[in-house]
Structures are given as structure tokens and as C-alpha cells.
């Protein structure tokens, strides 16, 4: 049997330089997006949005949105169909912004959408629709 240390030694992941890239986590139906590689803490805005702030400066360095699949199903009610291989994060933030009643959350989604557009952040549509 292989020990945990041996397993970790033999399965070392290659560390690549940071780039702002969203990560969809199906186990939590949530999407995490870091704009900067900084030590951070979470600040929950509402039940769907958590922003990550820099521990040093309190500047926003990322976010997590929850209930992504459910939100995409809401889009289908408006006959919006996802055909491209990738979904721009800006459209996702816009969808969340359109359905929140919280002015704070709306402001954050708008800001996040602009940041996502700057780096052309997108997520594979197949990941979001699977399962």
C-alpha cells in the first residue's frame, strides 16, 4: 500500500503562474473567481454572493456565486439558450444582477462584470450544464 506521503510525492501538481480564471465547483453548484492572487477573507453579501477581500487592503480580489445551475434554468424560462462552448462571466453576473433585490449586491455584480470583461473571463458551458 502507498503511504499518503508517497502518494503526494508521486502526484505533485505543476504550479502555474496565477491568472484570473473562474472555477465551477459542481459539488456546491458554485463558481469562484479570483482577480488577484492575494491572501483574502470572505464577506457574504447575500445568500448567492460572497466577495473575497484582500487581508491587507480590504480591496475586492474575487468572489463566489452560488446556485449557478439554478440561475441558468431561470434563463431558459426567457428562452435564452446557451450555444457557445464558453459562457462569458459578464453574462452570468448580469443574470444575477437582474434577479437580486439588494442594491449592494447589484453594485457588486456590476463591478465584477466589468472586471470579468477586462480579462475576458469565461467558463465552459458544458461544465455548467452537466449533471
Amino acid at each position: 500500500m502507498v503511504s499518503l506521503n508517497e502518494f503526494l510525492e508521486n502526484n505533485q501538481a505543476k504550479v502555474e503562474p496565477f491568472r484570473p480564471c473562474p472555477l465551477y465547483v459542481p459539488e456546491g453548484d458554485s463558481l469562484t473567481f479570483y482577480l488577484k492572487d492575494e491572501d483574502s477573507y470572505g464577506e457574504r453579501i447575500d445568500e448567492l454572493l460572497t466577495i473575497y477581500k484582500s487581508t491587507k487592503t480590504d480591496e475586492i480580489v474575487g468572489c463566489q456565486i452560488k446556485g449557478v445551475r439554478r440561475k441558468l434554468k431561470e434563463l431558459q424560462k426567457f428562452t435564452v439558450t446557451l450555444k457557445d462552448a464558453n459562457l462569458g462571466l459578464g453574462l452570468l453576473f448580469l443574470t444575477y444582477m437582474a434577479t437580486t433585490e439588494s442594491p449592494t449586491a447589484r453594485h457588486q455584480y456590476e463591478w465584477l462584470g466589468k472586471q470579468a470583461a477586462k480579462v475576458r473571463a469565461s467558463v465552459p458551458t458544458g461544465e455548467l450544464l452537466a449533471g
Partner: protein
Amino acid sequence: MERDEFNDGFCYCGIPAEKYVTEDAKVPPPPGMVFLIFVNKEFAIFEFRWEKMCKTNSNYPENYDTRFKHKTWSP
């Protein structure tokens, strides 16, 4: 957790003795913060992070009373 489709999930909350800033370097936990680990009903971790602690109950994060249903376990 008080969240649609994740009502059977759990959040583990505490203050670890140390915080890793790199693979090898660790520092004391940040003051005024608690560490949270979220798992779904299959106990798969889908999120972990530091958050500000509640001002009236330092064992829990801010707004814990509206975010979670009840305390399930305590040492």
C-alpha cells in the same frame, strides 16, 4: 445550511492554531476571523475560507443566526 438544495449540507467552523500562507510557511490565525469549511450532503468539500467573526459570539461567523439552521455538533 439555509440554502436551497443544500439544506442537508454542513458548515464546520473554528479557529485553527495556525494559518498556512504558503506550503511551508505558517502564521498565527488572523485576529477577529474564523475559518469555515462547507460540505454538501455527501460530505464533499466545496468551499473553505476565513470570515470575520460574529461580534456577539466569537465562535461563529457574522450573521450565523440567519445563515444556518442549528448547531449539529460541538466538542
